[in-house]
């Protein structure tokens, strides 16, 4: 198991899947906290695209989320082997697992399922 890159940056594939997973969860149980994190994740995804993105509103949130993700990549989930495995996972399947697990993981401000 090798170490992650020095900046512990997150793979674009993982970032996209992570964002898509939260989109699915948000569609099932909307929450304000998740909406904020989702906006920050989207900003990070876009910032990795070709066009540079100027974040004005929510800049602090995006920076905090970026730091959180960098910290996450320094844990045992960020080893090269674990990253390869995680990069192969799909948002739909991860969301399905989290939805099955949701009673424990649901955010305190989660609202009932949308019609």
């Amino acid at each position, binding site marked *: *198991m090798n*170490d992650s890159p*020095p900046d512990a940056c997150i793979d674009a594939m*993982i970032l996209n*899947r*992570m964002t898509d*997973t*939260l989109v699915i*969860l948000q569609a099932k149980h909307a*929450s304000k*906290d*998740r909406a*904020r*994190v*989702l906006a920050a994740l989207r900003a990070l995804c876009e910032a990795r695209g070709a066009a540079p993105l100027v974040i004005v509103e929510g800049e602090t949130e995006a920076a905090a989320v970026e730091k*959180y*993700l960098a*910290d*996450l990549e*320094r*844990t*045992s*989930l*960020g*080893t090269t082997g*674990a990253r390869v*495995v*995680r990069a*192969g*996972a799909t948002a739909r*399947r*991860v*969301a*399905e*697992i*989290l939805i*099955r*697990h949701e*009673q*424990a*993981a*649901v*955010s*305190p401000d989660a609202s009932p399922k949308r019609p």
Partner: protein
Amino acid sequence: MGASSASQPPREPARLKPGKEDYDLPRRDVVPVGEELLADADAAAASESGWLGGQERDAARRAAESLARRMQDQEHVNDLAVAGFAGPPYEIFAGELAAYGYPVILAWLRRGTIWKHCADRGRVLYPTDREREILEGQFEERLDLALETVAEGLKFFRERVLCAGRWSFDGGATLTTYFIGACLLAFPNVFRRWRTAERKWNLALAAGMLASPEGRTLSDLPGSDPADVAAGRGAVISELRSMPDGVMGAAALVVDGMSFADAADRLGTTERAIEGRLYRYRQRRNP
């Protein structure tokens, strides 16, 4: 993992619970950052290079890396504990554990090594040859089992490990290793539920409930040409016979005019399972 986790010192169950002002989290200032530790390990290996063999240097580096990762794991767990292992940060973390866990369980099911991993943890299972064949050969069956196992493992990991403060970096196992261990503990019950569902399904088939796919619906079509009905029936029967056992039963009932819900009742399973089996069959046939 088992040995290292077993050797952990006992901890107070509420140690990492949120809302307590006096919880005893490891102090951040005594946790060295991973990069420094790795640099130390490199420096130590370089200075000892005259004495240490390549394998020993590699082992020392791996040990240092593992310790650094575990310390970062601990910091992350401490942060999540403060938030009560809830909210979007926990969801992201749990999602990444799930993204790591289900491909691992899928691979172990395909290779048939999961039985040994469970037995190594004292959870001995005795799958039949048929069950092994199904799980090693059918991706969708493996996937259902893997997703359910990881969902159960995640629930166990949160409630019984993280909230209970039963994992610590000094126990010797990383979070990912510990999590996979939790999934292995969850697997036997998930497997038994799957086995029960499979047996019900097969019993329903064996009872001969589905032996007559000549559908009333097809033959009773008003104004149909008898020759067309006969030809259509022949094509349907031929198609049904070419289907795997599990799919044939469901398809025969649906062709016979039953709803998915009624077919599920007859077969002792769920509407979703019927729908899934037929959907997967269609996908395989018309990719």
